[in-house]
C-alpha cells in the first residue's frame, strides 16, 4: 500500500512539475438514459450541471482533471405495478427521480491543441453517487448507493473568445452494480465554458 502511495505522490509531483495551463470548466449537461436506467426512467433529461478542473501537460497534448457533476432524471409513470412474488398489485401515479452525482478523475488526449477547433478523446474514472426515489401516494421508496464507474468521452474545444472557450462533449456514463442496486448508464451531452 505504502509503495502505491509513494508512486502516486511521485506521479502527481511529476505531473504538476510539467503542468502548463489549467482550465476551469462549467458545463450544462443533458442526459439520455440507457439500459437499466432507461427501464426506470426513459425520458431525456435537460437537468444537469458539471464543474471540472483540468491541468495540461507541457510536452504532450494530454490533460488530467477532476470533475463533480449532477444529473437529474425524472418521469411520471401511471403503469400498474404487478408483483406475483410479493402478492401485490397497485395503481396510482408514480413520481420517479434519479439523481446522479459522478465524481471523476479525467485523462484527455487532444488532436489539435493549438488550433481554433481542438477535438479530444478522454476517459473518466471514479465514483457515482446515485439516489433513486419513487414517490407513490404518500410514500416514497428510496435507494441510494455509491457505485464505481467509468466515463469515456469524445469532444471538441472551440476557441471562441479571448476570455473563454466553448466545450462540446458526448460522455457515456456507466456506473457498475453496487450491492443490491443494478448498474446504471446514460449518455451525457455537455455544453460548457472553458476559462
Amino acid at each position, binding site marked *: 500500500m505504502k509503495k502505491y502511495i509513494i508512486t502516486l505522490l511521485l506521479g502527481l509531483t511529476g505531473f504538476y512539475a510539467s503542468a502548463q495551463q489549467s482550465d*476551469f470548466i*462549467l458545463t*450544462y449537461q443533458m442526459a439520455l438514459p440507457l439500459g437499466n436506467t432507461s427501464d426506470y426512467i426513459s425520458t431525456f433529461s*435537460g*437537468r*444537469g*450541471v458539471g*464543474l471540472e478542473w483540468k491541468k495540461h501537460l507541457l510536452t504532450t497534448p494530454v490533460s488530467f482533471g477532476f470533475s463533480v457533476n*449532477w444529473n*437529474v432524471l*425524472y418521469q411520471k409513470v401511471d403503469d*400498474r405495478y*404487478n*408483483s*406475483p412474488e*410479493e*402478492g*401485490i*398489485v*397497485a*395503481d*396510482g*401515479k408514480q*413520481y420517479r*427521480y434519479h439523481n446522479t452525482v459522478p465524481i471523476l478523475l479525467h485523462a484527455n488526449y487532444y488532436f489539435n491543441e493549438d488550433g481554433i477547433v481542438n477535438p479530444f478523446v478522454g476517459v473518466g474514472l471514479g465514483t457515482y453517487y446515485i439516489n433513486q426515489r419513487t*414517490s*407513490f*401516494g*404518500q*410514500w416514497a421508496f428510496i435507494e441510494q448507493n455509491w457505485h464505481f464507474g467509468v466515463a469515456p468521452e469524445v469532444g471538441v474545444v472551440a476557441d471562441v473568445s479571448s*476570455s*473563454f472557450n466553448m466545450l462540446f462533449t458526448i460522455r457515456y456514463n456507466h456506473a457498475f452494480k453496487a450491492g443490491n442496486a443494478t448498474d446504471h448508464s446514460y449518455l451525457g451531452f455537455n455544453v460548457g*465554458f472553458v*476559462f
Partner: protein
Amino acid sequence: MKTLFLKAFMLSSLIALLQSCYPGGAEYTSDLDIAISRYDSVESLRAYRTYYLVEDSIAVTSNTKDTLTLVQQLAVLANVDTQLQGILELEKVTKSELESGTKVPDLFIQLSQIAVQQSGFVWQPPYYPGYPGWGYPGWGYPGYPWYGGGYSYYSYSNGTILLDFIDVEQTTKENEGIGNDEVPVLILGWQGALNGVLSRANSVPLINEGVDVLFDQYNTAKAGTE
C-alpha cells in the same frame, strides 16, 4: 478579476437554473390517490366462488369526521355487491342462507373506512389480528377492526377504504376450539385498499371507480403473470 466574476456568475446561474427546474412531483391531492391490493395465494383467488357481503354499514376507524354517511356507505356497498358479481363473477350468499346454514360462502367480505389525522395504521395480510367479532355466525357482530404488527404505513386525514376478503374455510380452521373471550385470528384471502378517497368531498363515484380498479387488480392477480 473579470474572469473570476464571470465564473462565479456562470456557476450561480447554472445552479439556480437547475434548482428552479427541479421536478416537483404531485401537484394535486388527487395525484396521491392510490389503489393497492395484496393476496397470499393465486390458487386461492382462483378457487373462490361464493361470497357473503356485510351490507349493513362500513366499519369506521376514525378520529375525524371525514367518514362516509350511512347513505353514502350503502351506495358504496351496493356498487361493491354489483361488481363482486360483475367484475369478479362471484356468486352471492344471502344473509338468510348464511344464518340458516344452507350455504357456506368461500369469502366473508367486510368494508372499513379509516380516516386518521396524521397517525399511522398498519396493514398485514394474510394474518389478521381480528375484529372483536367479525359478524360471521357464531363469532358475534361486525366490530371495529384493529390493526397491529408488521407492514406499516401512514395516512393523513385523507383516509382509506379497506376491502377485506376473509377466507372462511381457513379462518374457521385456524380458530377451532378457541374460547368465547378470545379474539379470533382472521385469515385474509385478499385485501384491497383505496387511499386518499375519504375527505375529498367523500365522493361516492370516486370510491366506486376505485373499487372497480381494485377488482380489476384482483383479476390481474388471478391471471398470475406480470
